[in-house]
């Protein structure tokens, strides 16, 4: 049996009172009790003119510090950090930015015999997007990036677009830019 999928439609300009109210937003992906290296991640979404998109919504899904997803289909024989949920959702501000409070995830099994490098999975929604676009956030300078099987699918010159960068002035602060178009267009995945 195979049913036809319901098609996607844009979130439109007015989703904030339904999806990103104070009650429905999730800024804190990892609570203060969660294990792992703390990360304050600032994301910014830019359109084809390099202008911040003020009516976008970012969703993040990630594993805990041990690389375990809080999900029954994760077959790894580890127990998830009891403080762990792994989901974040924020609407962007006027300049296209928003923040998440989280931890650097552990390495998740990938295809083949390699582990994936620490990464966050991200879906981007906005007015003017008829469907969500998927990307990943890796941590610049992480040695595991060299052997990540997904980064290996991306041409060398575009891998940089998937990197979050540490703020040299503020320990634990990271920045990630989502560029929808242009010279440094972010790599989006066909999932």
């Amino acid at each position, binding site marked *: 049996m195979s049913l036809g999928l*319901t*098609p996607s439609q844009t*979130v439109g300009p007015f989703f904030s*009172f339904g999806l990103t109210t104070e009650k429905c937003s999730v800024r804190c992906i990892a609570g203060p009790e969660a294990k792992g290296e703390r990360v304050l991640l600032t994301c910014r979404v830019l359109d084809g003119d390099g202008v911040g998109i003020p*009516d976008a919504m970012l969703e993040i899904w990630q594993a805990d510090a041990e690389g375990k997803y809080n999900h029954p*289909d994760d077959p790894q024989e580890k127990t998830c950090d009891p403080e762990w949920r792994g989901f974040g959702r924020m609407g962007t501000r006027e300049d296209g930015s928003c923040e998440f409070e989280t931890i650097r995830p552990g390495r998740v099994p*990938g295809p083949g015999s390699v582990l994936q490098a620490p990464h966050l999975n991200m879906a981007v929604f906005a*007015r*003017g997007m008829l469907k969500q*676009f998927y990307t990943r956030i890796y941590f610049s300078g992480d040695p595991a990036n060299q052997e990540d099987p997904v980064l290996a699918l991306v041409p060398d010159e575009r891998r940089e677009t998937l990197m979050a960068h540490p703020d040299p002035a503020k320990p634990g602060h990271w920045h990630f830019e989502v560029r929808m178009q242009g010279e440094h267009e972010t790599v989006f995945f066909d999932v």
Partner: protein
Amino acid sequence: MRHLANERSIITPYRRHEEGCQPPAPYQAYESTIKRSPSKPLTFLPHTLSEITGPIYGHGQIAETDNDLTRQHAGEPNGERIIVIGRVLDCNGRPVPEALVEIWQANAAGRYRHQDDQHPAPLDPNFTGAGRMRTDENGAYRFVTIKPGAYPWFNHYNAWRPAHIHFSIFGRAFISRLVTQMYFPGDLLFAYDPVYQSIPDEKARQRMVCKFDLETTQPQWALGYRFDIVLRGPEATPFETP
């Protein structure tokens, strides 16, 4: 299409989208997509644990009136009261239990409770227009609300959106996440609406239109509509390699 061998982890990949059943990006007739869609081809990603898992536990509190948009204020909202029921299923026909379903919509006059909505139609002090609930063990959900009005937008001259309710649904996996719009049967604005028309396949497009349902309709009280939602699900046969 590239596949990576799966030696260690046992992963059942999710079924991919069929041609013509999802909107393109960008879509010229919907002007805002032009600067907001990737211009380079997407990178094909074989599914890993990261794609086939997703947020299924908890999304904060759900209050008792969250699925009844007519009872969230002191008085009753203006407009035609309706009941919208349906099931969330995966493409294999399996119900998706405990799925978070969120909706938001304009009021009966076609006005959203949002600071950027410039449509000179009245706000309704008794209507916010947002709701949420979780599906039961059969994947079923039920909302009581009022029928939203059509409203104008600035995409092109004399542009009007057909009446619709926005739906956001979390399935079992991060890649089964869906945001869509539910339309009403026989809307005369379908032919002129680039958002609705963005779905190339006519049959797929009609899957966004709810059906009038006499069984759900309550005598002397409200019309009922059924809107079933089908999300991506695992491919039928898991492939396992030791």
